[in-house]
């Protein structure tokens, strides 16, 4: 662990601007050989963007990249791979319609002399990598048939098979079980011994402290600290991550929840590959209550919300609003009954990015502004202006395209759209994902205010602090099941984490 390890890659004053946000601001970052270089930061701090720049997926708006002392610019990820940089992406970049072996060797297929793909050889070599991961994945399986954790392992096998000099892992453990994480750490130790530089991104501090050699902290696109891991502790990392001002969760005001406003009974959603994505989940929510649903990636939180909103025709179970059963099966009429969803993926499900801020805000509630079939422009504008003010959406003119806003303001537009339908129950899926600190505080404050006004709020998150600070009660999901339900007073982080890991062993996965 000598500090004198050779620097293989260096970023100098790198910035990246997107439509809507400045993701990385003048970052200086060093990657050392034969070490695990840890990168931490909150959601939306710019970690993934920084890594995509190194991997050639994104090009920096400004700044230089030095690889082994020589300035390089990658115009595609292919360029970066050619220079020995591999990446395990956070969002899985796999082809579901192809086999595991085909995925591992995508773009560098092994061919015989005539140019025909040598399937046998590919599968043989793929199984060498897969065996090291001890996950029971056969190279001829279709990727879409694998569990999400197994898919992540395939992604890792793919990156390892590149024989990269620098290997970037963006939250590789987010969907892995404890046993699978151990295997991954063995693989990492092995790579390290062979002199590979590993860049490791994760949210789980205990993990980072265990395997990291150096640590770099990002906050709001800026690098706020870079240190040897053995010289720092958890407190130091947290301080760098959140700055002097701790997270602003907005205080609970101690109002008492009212009557039960929402109840779900025995919600089930079959998975295409067999088994249940949502497994007999029942829960109830009172007016003015915030119920946090904690769980890892793939735990079934989003799927549960989808079932409640009527997005899956084949889901079963009953839901009740204020004691009355909701028999309507389609989203449109469930919204009319008082349900509203703020989806996890803002770009793909929350916004129509080419429409204006105003059109997006009123999209779900147009019927409120209509007489006969005519949209009353005045009434609509008034509602838009009021919502923009209430949620403090920073926009010069509501006629602006929504894609020109920053992530946090876009999220507020999605929230505003849901609120304009005058819901009784609000479902929020990762409402603070990918937005800046200020907007986060606004979102949390809004949640508090809404609960005070008597709305029932169900919110899903994989952020432990968030669920602890905001919820009146905490439900934990794992593998589609509800594995824990805690009152805030009695909830401990340890108990929640333990519940979220239930039923996640590989043995369980094999049975299905």
């Amino acid at each position, binding site marked *: 662990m000598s500090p004198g390890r050779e620097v293989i890659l260096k970023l100098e004053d790198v910035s990246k601007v997107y439509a809507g946000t*400045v993701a990385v601001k003048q970052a200086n970052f060093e990657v050392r050989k034969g070490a695990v270089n840890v990168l931490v930061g909150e959601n939306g701090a710019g970690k993934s963007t920084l890594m995509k720049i190194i991997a050639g997926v994104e090009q920096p708006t400004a700044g230089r990249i030095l690889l082994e002392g020589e300035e390089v610019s990658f115009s595609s990820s292919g360029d970066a791979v050619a220079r020995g940089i591999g990446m395990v992406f956070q969002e899985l970049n796999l082809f579901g319609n192809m086999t595991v072996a085909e995925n591992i060797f995508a773009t560098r297929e092994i061919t015989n002399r005539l140019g025909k793909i040598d399937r046998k050889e590919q599968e043989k070599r793929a199984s060498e990598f897969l065996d090291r991961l001890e996950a029971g994945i056969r190279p001829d399986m279709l990727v879409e048939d694998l569990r999400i954790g197994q898919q992540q392992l395939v992604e890792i096998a793919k990156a390892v098979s590149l024989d990269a000099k620098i290997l970037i892992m963006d939250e590789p453990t987010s969907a892995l079980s404890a046993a699978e994480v151990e295997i991954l750490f063995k693989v990492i130790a092995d790579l390290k011994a062979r002199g590979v530089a590993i860049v490791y991104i994760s949210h789980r501090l205990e993990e980072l402290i265990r395997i990291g050699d150096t640590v770099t902290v990002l906050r709001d696109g800026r690098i706020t600290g870079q240190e040897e891991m053995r010289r720092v502790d958890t407190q130091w990392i947290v301080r760098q991550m959140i700055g002097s001002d701790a997270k602003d969760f907005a205080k609970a005001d101690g109002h008492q929840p009212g009557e039960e406003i929402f109840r779900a009974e025995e919600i089930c959603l079959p998975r295409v590959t067999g088994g249940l994505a949502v497994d007999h989940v029942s829960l109830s929510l009172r007016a003015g209550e915030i119920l946090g649903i904690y769980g890892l990636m793939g735990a079934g939180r989003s799927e549960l919300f989808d079932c409640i909103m009527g997005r899956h025709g084949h889901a079963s179970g009953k839901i009740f609003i204020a004691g009355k059963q909701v028999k309507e099966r389609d*989203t449109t009429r469930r919204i009319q009954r008082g349900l509203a969803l703020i989806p996890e993926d803002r770009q793909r*499900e929350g916004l129509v990015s080419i429409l204006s801020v105003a059109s997006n805000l009123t999209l779900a509630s147009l019927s409120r502004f209509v007489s006969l079939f005519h949209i009353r422009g005045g009434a609509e504008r008034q509602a838009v202006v009021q919502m923009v003010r209430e949620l403090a959406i920073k926009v010069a003119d509501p006629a602006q395209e929504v894609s020109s806003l920053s992530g946090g303001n876009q999220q507020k537009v999605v929230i505003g759209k849901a609120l304009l339908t005058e819901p009784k129950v609000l479902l929020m899926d990762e409402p603070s994902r990918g937005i800046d600190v200020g907007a986060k505080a606004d979102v949390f404050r809004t949640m508090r205010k809404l609960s005070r006004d008597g709305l029932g709020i169900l919110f899903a998150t994989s952020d432990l602090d968030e669920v602890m600070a905001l919820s009146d009660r905490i439900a934990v999901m794992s593998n589609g099941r509800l594995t824990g339900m805690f009152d805030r007073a009695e909830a401990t982080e340890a108990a929640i984490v333990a519940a979220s890991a239930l039923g996640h062993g590989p043995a369980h996965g094999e049975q299905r």
Partner: protein
Amino acid sequence: MTDIPAKAAAPSASSGSALLTLMKLRTFIALIAVLVFFSIAAPNFLSAANLILMAKHVALNAFLAMGMTFVIITGGIDLSVGSIVGLCGMVAGYLVLNGIDLQIGYTVYFNVFEIIVITLLVGIAIGAVNGLLITRLNVAPFIATLGVLYVARGFALLSSDGRTFPNLVGKPELGTTGFGFLGAGRLLGLPVSIWILIVVALGAAYLARYTPLGRHIFAVGGNERAARISGVRVNMVKMFVYMFSGFCAAIVGLIISSELMASHPATGESFELNAIAAAVLGGTSMSGGRGTIGGTIVGAFVIGILSDGLVMMGVSSFWQMVIKGLVIIVAVVVDQAQRRLQQRVTLMQMARVG
């Protein structure tokens, strides 16, 4: 991807937005350009008689292009409109000549108004078939409407064994006279077909702008998943746009057979391509979510005036095709350039703000 440092490009941002405005008005500029060019190059081009004749030609394509615009905005395509034109013309011609034989010794004859309504309903019904194939059976719009293209054309040919229904004057004793009014009649000096175009265009533009349905059409094309989650009845919206497209095609079928006082089963072949061209020229984005009725009408006029003007100048019809093709390609290239420029301008502004 070009990496221009923010500072260096800042002064060009304002000239960029001027260029942007120019690009946004491109269809209008093109319209004025062809008008000016032909009024100099072709004698008699600006005479009232010629202008009205051209407008009548353009109107046919404009109807189809309006229907097509809504379809394309939702992210679909309707290849069947040309065949619907043909089939609806045959339906109208058949009803004028033969009425409906009830198989019990009676034959029912309809008056012209009833015939028009029935024909429009046939067009809407074929559109509904398109919509059902696409929404219920999940057939890709391209394939579904391609299939309907063949089926409708086949039925049009079957209806008369490939012959023309001639001389649709009708018989006074059966009350079937007056079918020529649609194609040849005039109100206040303007042909009836132009009046119909004005009414339908105003209606469509109103629908797009001031009704929830119009807003939903754009939302479905912009992001179908987000629209669905926001409670938009996506399937209903899609049904509507294909039915509206069928309705527009039926109008064209009626007007053409009324103009000719005859129905020919091959009428309308390749009309769908002209309609798509007009919509695209008018700024409708094939990837959905963008487009206006006004733009489409202007696009239809550019294409129509271009081909009529070239005819008047005596340019061979083969060259006309080449020129039309080039105009469409240039229009789309400019459209793409505008998008990129727009993105750049916004990015620059953001970079400057911080």
